């Protein structure tokens, strides 16, 4: 038993987090920063944070993740990190030559009260930022929110530092895709293209964190959202923000800053959320939905009906990030599954309300917790067993101990491939999710079937 010390009896804990279902803000900010073309994320704090974030993103994507650090030592912690950041900005532009640096804080620089706005301003005034290049920033203390909040704050930082309203609308729609995989960003772009919307998507990590192997290494691949496109986001006719937790703040900031109206939607995971996304796209674009999209939707419906018997009534435990889990819960309910335990580590009571609302009247009681941990999830499972666990790589310990099928979903996934390349968003993503769920459920059925019941055809 890997988690041999986890008791079935649940006691409320007020201070000890065991097996977290979240991590800290800066890693989200680093991921978001990588979605800008020619951007080097920079961690303002001691160098361990940067090393940890780079390692974790690298393990998840199996791709180079370059990011610099202010390398604080005790002196900087006492006297402030201004000198370190100024020196870093100068060195980064001379040695690595990025187009843009996206600086985020850590708990260290936040606690000592470094003011990024002032330091970056000083760097510009002192000529440390070459002409035409930019330094953007976000405040991401690790003791507030989670990695999702950090992602959201850096996307908001992009808007705050870059977006400008010239007074003339450019006819484009901004799409803020939220914390999804590079493959999902690609898929969202594909769908928007099919609908015929003229759009700017930011951030965009497709091609950055699922790039090719060619024999050449480019620290800044020819991918990501160009800074000038984010600047022009201030002239867009509207913004579709996907995900209340990871995208809404940026969209609302853009509205306040540049008068670009916004709509906040769920991440387009599953049938209904994808429907709403496409419906919103066709409304903003003033187009009708092409048959190709209807065809893909029909395929998804077809698979649901073909395999409904295997989904129906199955109990599922979920752990992950709020926006992802809200959309996933809705999809599982569409399949007539029962997401009975739902945990996110990211704080926010709205999450619990939303999950309860989705599950209301579906014939089962849902255990839901925001700011929970995976130890609690495991205890819930011990008290009420499930047929399936969906969550990140760390779920495999629970899955093995309790002998429950596990579908990897969310962040980080360190021990499987696919999440970088195959989307879970859109109708095609829905089919992929079902394929993964069916794969583990039917493998289990085959493994456990008595010989006389071991059948070739389902």
């Amino acid at each position, binding site marked *: 038993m890997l988690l041999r010390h986890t008791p079935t009896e649940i006691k409320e*804990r007020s201070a000890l987090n065991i097996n977290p279902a979240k991590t*800290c803000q800066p890693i989200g900010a680093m991921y978001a920063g990588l979605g800008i073309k020619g951007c080097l994320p920079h961690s303002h704090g001691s160098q361990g944070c940067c090393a940890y974030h780079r390692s974790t993103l690298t393990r998840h994507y199996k791709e180079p993740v370059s990011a610099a650090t202010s390398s604080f030592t005790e002196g900087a912690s006492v006297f402030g990190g201004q000198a*370190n950041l100024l020196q870093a900005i100068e*060195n980064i532009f001379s*040695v690595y030559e990025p187009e843009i640096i996206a600086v985020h804080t850590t708990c*260290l620089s936040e606690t000592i009260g470094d003011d990024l706005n002032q330091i970056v301003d000083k760097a510009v005034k002192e000529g440390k930022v070459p002409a035409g290049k930019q330094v953007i920033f976000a405040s991401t203390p690790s003791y507030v929110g989670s990695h999702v909040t950090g992602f959201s704050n850096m996307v908001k930082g992009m808007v705050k530092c870059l977006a400008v309203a010239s007074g003339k609308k450019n006819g484009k729609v901004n799409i803020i895709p939220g914390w999804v995989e590079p493959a999902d960003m690609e898929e969202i772009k594909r769908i928007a293209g099919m609908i015929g919307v003229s759009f700017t998507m930011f951030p965009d990590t497709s091609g950055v964190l699922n790039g090719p*192997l060619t024999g050449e290494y480019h620290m800044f691949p020819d991918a990501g959202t160009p800074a000038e496109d984010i600047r022009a986001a201030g002239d867009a006719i509207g913004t579709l923000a996907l995900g209340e937790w990871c995208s809404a703040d940026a969209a609302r900031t853009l509205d306040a800053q540049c008068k670009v109206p916004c709509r906040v939607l769920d991440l387009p995971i599953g049938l209904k959320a994808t429907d709403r996304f496409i419906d919103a796209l066709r409304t903003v674009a003033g187009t009708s939905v092409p048959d190709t999209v209807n065809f893909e939707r029909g395929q998804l419906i077809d698979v649901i009906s073909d395999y409904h018997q295997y989904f129906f009534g199955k109990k599922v435990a979920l752990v992950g990030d709020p926006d992802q889990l809200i959309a996933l819960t809705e999809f599982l309910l569409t399949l007539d599954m029962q997401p009975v335990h739902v945990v996110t580590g990211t704080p926010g009571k709205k999450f619990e309300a939303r999950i309860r609302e989705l599950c209301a009247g579906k014939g089962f009681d849902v255990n839901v917790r925001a700011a929970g941990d995976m130890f609690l999830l495991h205890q819930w499972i011990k008290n009420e067993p499930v047929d399936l666990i969906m969550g990140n790589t760390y779920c495999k310990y629970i899955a093995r101990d309790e002998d429950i099928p596990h579908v990897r979903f969310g962040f980080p996934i360190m021990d499987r491939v696919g999440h970088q390349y195959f989307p879970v968003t859109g109708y095609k993503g829905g089919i992929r999710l079902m394929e993964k769920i069916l794969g583990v459920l039917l493998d289990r059925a085959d493994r456990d079937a008595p010989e006389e019941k071991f059948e070739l055809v389902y």
Partner: protein
Amino acid sequence: MALKHKSIPDVATVKEELLKKYPTKVARKRAKQIVINDVKDGDVVPEVQANVRTTPGIITMRGCTYAGCKGVILGPTRDIVNITHGPIGCGFYSWLTRRNQTKAPLESSENFMPYAFSTDMQDEDIIFGGEKKLIAAIQEAYDTFHPKAIAIFATCPVGLIGDDIHAVARKMKEKLGINIFAFSCEGYKGVSQSAGHHIANNQIFTHVVGEDDTPKLGEYKINMLGEYNIGGDAFELERVLEKCGITLVSTFSGNSTYEHFATAHQADLNAVMCHRSINYVAEMMETKYGIPWIKVNFIGAESSAKSLRKIAQYFGDKKLIDRVEEVIAEEMPAVHAALEDVKPFTEGKTAMLFVGGSRAHHYQDLFTEMGMKTIAAGYEFAHRDDYEGRKVMPTIKVDADSRNIEEIEVAPDSTRFVPRKSDEDLKRLAEEGFTFKDYEGMMPQMESNTLVIDDLNQYEADKLIELLKPDVFCAGIKEKFSVQKMGVPMKQLHSYDYGGPYAGFKGAVNFYTEIKRLVTSKVWSDLKAPWEENPELSATYVWE
């Protein structure tokens, strides 16, 4: 036949090239950390600047003090509840990511390694102080798990807001009656992970070593220091030592337990693997308990044999000396067979190693056994003695960053100090050429006209590969994929790319096979599509 290595550009030119793009100040500093090796009189080497601050903005391979303390040293111990006091990130990132394996003997034995414990500090804890939350967390951990010991690790903000974790530890130790101790291992201390190793080792030495006098039985009792059981290395060492009849009292800290540390003072010899992370513990154990120490290396089959012989020679017992020879004779045929298989593919090839604080040295032995040459190497967090040998220790300047790390004063223990060897024995061993507490360092072993680079960074790594095109590059996960994008196979030596073990005899065979796989892998020759290999279109298909 002399080994033929492919010709490489002049190292002086390479060095110049590495420095060219830097701003003057950075170039001046890096010039002292990028050294052309030049070995004179067998062991005199140039001075290298090491253990100094990383320049802000430079993409370093280094981590932090917390990572060195909690992740590296305490990470591999299975029965201590390790609570990270801080925001959630540090605890999360040090959760099951170092591949320290452990084998709890029974279903009922304690094993907390798959758990991550954190106080998950929130902004109100930063404003009002986190001690109350830490006390509550320790109580909750105790109520839920009833461990024999709890360790507390400070993260950056804890030091800044001034939480007294040591006072909390003392208070809770008294209240709960189990051993509770704390580590002031805030990430900003020191210049690399190395400071964290030091802080961890000092506290383990102070709070745990010598706590248990229950006699440990065994004829030839040793401790293995500086072995962390990545990918099962310690399991292989345990197998080999047991086969020789040597009793392993403790390993610091791979596959270890609290009791192993607490009884470590009963061993008769300390064998030091990773010199960087733990040489001072060996020193302190000698002063306090009278246990002599020697440097060993179990990476490489020949090195393993040599280290076993050294241990046997120390004990000087014919029974052990004979047994060790028997074991070596039993283990070596498989090693030779493996070498015969891989050498046609590896001989003459080149490697670069940039890892840790001893691995970049130790793994050169394996490459040498395969007929490969290390053309550039360096450490992430070493000090000068790791490069140049212990003889330079008195000349190392202690700067402000190192002074922040506590040096503990040790005196002989009034009851437990026992000299393990008589003066005559020591004299005889010295006459036989036996050396205690010595480490000659990486550079004397490397050939002249190779590059030794401390704290390599992303820019220099890219340039090195471009200019010297090694056949294999060894580093960590952060470096892996940029190297591979350039078409060079990269071997992780911190996590072994989820392979291993590579220590001892079986480990050597694993490593040879792995390197053969890397240097013969077809994928590197498939990088270009046919139309890229031959872009000029000279004819078109005629379909009809």
